[in-house]
């Protein structure tokens, strides 16, 4: 089998496979640009409040476990690697490897959510979840609460994106497994790969902004 062997069946209104592929990628990149702005609003809010509540953010960040954030980054980078390889396999029509790599990516993504869930759990125990149960001994508890509001909102939205990604991997994986062997749909895996890589990128910024502010 030559490289780039897998070809997608043409859908209306496309007359060429290349055009169909470019349109799929273009559409996904436009969606990702809107996602940059969606997360960008929250990053802007973070910038403003970190500037105005400098000390409070430093104090609040002391309650973050940097090694858990680092481990999560490691897990996510590795899953980005396996997803990139999976896309490569989809383009070559290599179904066995595609399914294997999708499985590894899925497990890594699920591990990420597990670690993050553990962190959320310990935050509840330490009364660091914003709301009526929030308790913080510091110079500016309100400012520190803002740090945790941003932490839960931004990592929560990121986790939601991860969850959607995991569901898509599961759906496309099962679909590939049970579809006829000659059916190759490399475009949808390329688009899925772009989405997954984007979710990786968002985390790359969340990690320093929430875990490396004041590591112990």
């Amino acid at each position, binding site marked *: 089998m030559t490289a780039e062997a897998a070809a997608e069946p043409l859908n209306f209104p496309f007359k060429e496979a290349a055009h169909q592929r*470019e349109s799929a*990628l*273009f559409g996904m*990149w*436009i969606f*990702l*640009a*809107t*996602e*940059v*702005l969606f997360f*960008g*609003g929250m*990053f*802007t809010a973070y*910038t*403003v409040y*970190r*500037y*105005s509540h*400098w000390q409070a953010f430093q104090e609040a960040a002391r309650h973050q476990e*940097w090694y858990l954030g*680092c481990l999560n*980054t*490691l897990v996510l*980078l*590795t899953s*980005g*690697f396996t*997803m*990139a*390889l999976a*896309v*490569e*396999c989809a383009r*070559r029509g*290599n179904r066995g*490897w595609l399914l294997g790599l999708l499985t590894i990516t899925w497990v890594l993504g699920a591990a990420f959510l597990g670690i993050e869930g553990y962190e959320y759990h310990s935050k509840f125990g330490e009364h660091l979840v914003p709301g009526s149960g929030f308790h913080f001994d510091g110079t500016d508890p309100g400012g520190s609460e803002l740090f945790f509001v941003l932490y839960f909102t931004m990592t929560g939205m990121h986790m939601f994106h991860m969850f959607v990604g995991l569901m898509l991997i599961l759906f496309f994986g099962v679909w590939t497994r049970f579809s006829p062997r000659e059916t190759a749909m490399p475009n949808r895996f*390329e688009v899925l*790969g*772009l989405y997954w*890589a*984007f979710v*990786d*990128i968002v985390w*790359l*910024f969340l*990690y*320093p*902004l929430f875990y*490396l*502010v004041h*590591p112990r």
Partner: protein
Amino acid sequence: MKAKFGHYLRVLGSLYLLLAITTGLAFLPLDAWNWLPSVVIAFVMAGLIMLFFMRLRQSEPLLWLTSASGFAWLSLLMLFVVLDYISRPWPR
């Protein structure tokens, strides 16, 4: 496929290295400025992922432009919001 595997593995290795650097730098006593190196490194890592894992390097200019557009608009938002906050006193 083997060549591709090595290619992606090198990218992953670079990302691991950058992660180690950014984590290590966080422990330096840079005081109020420790966000700067870590955000710069995050941009470098994002660039690596976009170029290689998202295959921008082999993509046509249209996709380069589209991928940059989101960041371009976001930088305008950031720039003007930050300018506003640093150019007048913050009511505490």
